[in-house]
């Protein structure tokens, strides 16, 4: 396949008001691509793996940036950079799960421009899909990854349906664990969606990883104070500590009474096309002590229903061990 050095030529819209961005997004629909930090966008476009007539650059819309304290938590503008999320005092103090997750994304330069909304909403990673092949997710009728020779070491263990690609976002599992709400605007108004329902797997929609549709803009993420100051655990395992996407990551929150777990959220990333909440483990450890013994007794439950592909079997013990380490703390 040819390699391209330059961006394809297209039009660029740079609105400074969200209303204007919505009007353009509504008018151009599939012909335009919304750009936040652009760190995922430019690869798709430079590779000619996807093409559009125009980019709508949202980065000048100040109302989509910043972290605000609300009556019941915080609201983070979707365009807030990962560096800003990492360094935010209120997030570090009360919702450090999210700052830990944001600090592990890619590299410093990418975190300086990449946004929370973009990182959480990023498309799946799959060599074949991202090289522009006509796979299921790209509208075709085969999968190149789930084949005996296919390179699928990074792919999914769960909830595959024709497509086996995984979403490796570091912040998405943290948002699900914190019971975040995604705020979506379109020209017909504002709607909110629980983070858990925001992400969509291939069985329900094979061409989209979120509920966002043309004309929609993710404007903010709200984090309720439900989990403020809980005991948090985040760990990302990747081939290199910088740049590489997670092979598996884990975001967990525990409410403790003494060392007894009252309530918990355990969410794994990079094991399916959406963040995977490990509800059976959450239920099993309720009322148990936060200890190695508890962790050992439930770890294998974390991968109930996992189906390894030819080369990603290592993710099963990896995920179990990350769940264990999260519980032990």
């Amino acid at each position: 396949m040819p390699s391209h050095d330059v961006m394809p030529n297209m039009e660029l819209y740079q609105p400074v008001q969200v209303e204007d961005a919505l009007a353009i997004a509504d008018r151009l629909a599939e012909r335009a691509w919304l750009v936040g930090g652009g760190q995922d966008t430019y690869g798709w476009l430079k590779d000619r793996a996807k093409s559009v007539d125009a980019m709508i650059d949202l980065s000048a819309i100040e109302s989509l940036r910043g972290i605000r304290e609300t009556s019941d938590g915080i609201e983070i503008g979707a365009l807030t950079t990962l560096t800003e999320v990492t360094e935010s005092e209120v997030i570090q103090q009360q919702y450090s799960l999210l700052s830990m997750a944001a600090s592990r994304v890619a590299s410093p330069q990418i975190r300086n421009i990449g946004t929370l909304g973009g990182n959480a909403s990023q498309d799946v990673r799959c060599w074949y899909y991202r090289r522009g092949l006509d796979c299921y997710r790209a509208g075709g009728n085969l999968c190149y990854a789930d084949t005996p020779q296919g390179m699928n070491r990074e792919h999914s263990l769960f909830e595959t349906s024709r497509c086996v690609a995984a979403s490796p976002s570091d912040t998405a599992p943290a948002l699900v664990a914190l019971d975040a709400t995604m705020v979506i605007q379109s020209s017909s108004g504002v709607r909110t969606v629980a983070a858990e329902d925001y992400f969509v797997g291939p069985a329900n929609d094979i061409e989209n990883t979120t509920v966002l549709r043309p004309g929609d803009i993710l404007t903010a993420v709200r984090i309720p104070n439900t989990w403020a100051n809980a005991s948090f655990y985040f760990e990302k395992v990747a081939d290199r500590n910088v740049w590489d996407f997670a092979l598996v990551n884990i975001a967990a929150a525990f409410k403790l009474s003494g060392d007894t777990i009252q309530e918990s959220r355990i969410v794994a990333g990079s094991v399916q096309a959406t963040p995977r909440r490990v509800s059976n483990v959450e239920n099993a450890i309720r009322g148990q002590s936060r200890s190695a013994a508890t962790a050992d007794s439930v770890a294998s439950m974390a991968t109930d229903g996992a189906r390894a592909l030819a080369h990603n079997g290592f993710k099963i013990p990896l995920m179990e061990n990350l769940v264990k380490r999260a519980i032990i703390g």
Partner: protein
Amino acid sequence: MNSKLTRRRFIKGVIFSGAAATTGTGVYLVASAQAGQAAAERLITLNINGRDRPVDVLPSETLAHTLRYKLDLTGTKIGCNRGECGACTVLINGVPNYACSVLTHNVKGKSVVSIEGVKSMDGTLHSIQQAFVDVNAPQCGFCTPGQIMSAVALLNNNPRPSREETRQALSGNLCRCGAYEHYINGVMRASGQIA
């Protein structure tokens, strides 16, 4: 809405294309009506290394492309062109960014510093540059401009960084020679922590 905001909204809202017209809202100069027609270069002024530089820029042009091929600032290297190596690192409003992964139209009104803008006006090398020379930090040298930009940004914010802080700050700059420890030594020397 005050007039200042309206003016800013108008100026920043300009869209780049061959033919210009206005939308119903009157906010934008819009693209040509013919879909698929190639968008055209537009003359904008960028602040690069403290100087205002007028330059013709395509709508989807990256900053690395503009610096190298329009402004002849070839010190900024394009390694991977995908935000995966760091050779194109520049400072935008003092913050390290990959110039290959920023649209040039996105840095209007911001100050950009490339490797050419690091030394003093009289030609004296920046302390990081001199330290990198002194400790023989680079091997092949291709990643060096990017390493310098990340190191300069680090010292601007943290004049005496630890080795670990330096490792983190330079972690977005790949060096295929593996000269990482030498670059860290250079930062230690530039910050006066080793001779």
